[in-house]
């Protein structure tokens, strides 16, 4: 359940940003989670509720923005959408795909007081 560690990272980042950007409370967190990232969004949402208790983000809304996986098909030399790791190229059927994006876990924006 490494989502607990990830949720703790969210709170640490919020605390650092609160000092840097001078706010006291977080109402909403917009979090980008790539389809190919090492994160289960539902587990992260559960852990976020747990670890934000008693913090500046207690009761905050977590908006998870899913981004699609991106890859480069080595067989047909074109960019492809990768729904899951290990899936074939949707145009040529090859499995020779290099993942190029969609694995980020990034806080994008906050609504704060």
């Amino acid at each position, binding site marked *: 359940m*490494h989502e607990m560690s990830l949720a703790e990272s969210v709170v640490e980042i919020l605390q650092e940003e609160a000092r840097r950007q001078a*706010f006291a409370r977080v*109402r909403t967190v917009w979090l980008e989670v790539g389809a190919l990232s090492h*994160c289960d969004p539902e587990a992260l949402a559960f852990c976020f509720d747990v670890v934000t208790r008693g913090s500046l983000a207690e009761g905050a809304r977590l908006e998870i923005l899913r981004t699609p996986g991106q890859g480069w098909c080595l067989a047909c030399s074109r960019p492809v959408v990768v729904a899951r790791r290990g899936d074939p190229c949707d145009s040529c059927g090859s499995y020779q795909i290099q993942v190029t994006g969609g694995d980020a876990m990034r806080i994008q*924006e906050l609504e704060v007081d």
Partner: protein
Amino acid sequence: MCSTCGCGGDDHGQSETEIAPPPHPPHTHGHDHDDAHDPPADPGAAGRRVRVEQELLAKNDRYAAANRQSWEARSILALNLLSSPGSGKTALLVATSRALAHDVKVAVVEGDQQTSLDADRIRATGVAAMQINTGKGCHLDAHQVGHAVESLALADRSLLFIENVGNLVCPAGFDLGEQARVVVLSVTEGDDKPLKYPDAFASADLVVINKIDLLPYVDFNVDRCIAYTRRLRPAVETLCLSATTGDGVAAWLAWLAARRTDLLQARRARLAAELAAVDGALNPPPGATPQP
């Protein structure tokens, strides 16, 4: 407080590191999150919007970069070993420690939920080992490993093995600063395991298929397993061996030696370039303006 990173720890020199897991309150509600989040306390007035753009793993990645820089500066080859529990990571490291005892300094960081049994097995071969007990934690992170390595007092040009917690899911996302990642899979686990646990295999530089002495007794197709692994990481290297019988271990030792040679040659090239620069400064070519 720790002088390296200000983490508040004061026991990094001890032989065992207990990293306390975060407190986890009892579950009092279900896990359905379709509509489980409380709205803001004052939904009427909108709050201020601020941009952040921060990666969740940025802090771990900073510690990992510091580990990597420190190890590369000392020509230490660091490998991160991932696998499910029981695939034979420790058996492979015991065999490796015995084989390399007279050639290379070896050190091992062991990650387990509890006990020092694995570190004890490694130490019995005469190799320095440090056990990290993660408690309820499911993976090693770069900060834990950095401190564990401090207490091992690694020799320059040594070989560092980091045996991660037996788990093919969580450790995959955490860079420890290793030069290469090795995923170990045993033939009793099934040849479709790479597809079932893609994150770990997609991050592997080398996949070791272990316990090949058991192939006659199990339904495991080595070629299929390697083909599945290449779907996830087209350029991955693979080795088949038995840590117990020693079959195939020579190829593993050769792989380690080649990685170490690459690291040492890169170091040698940097030192040669620096030496040439220093020589150039001491003996400028005729006609060059003398530098102060």
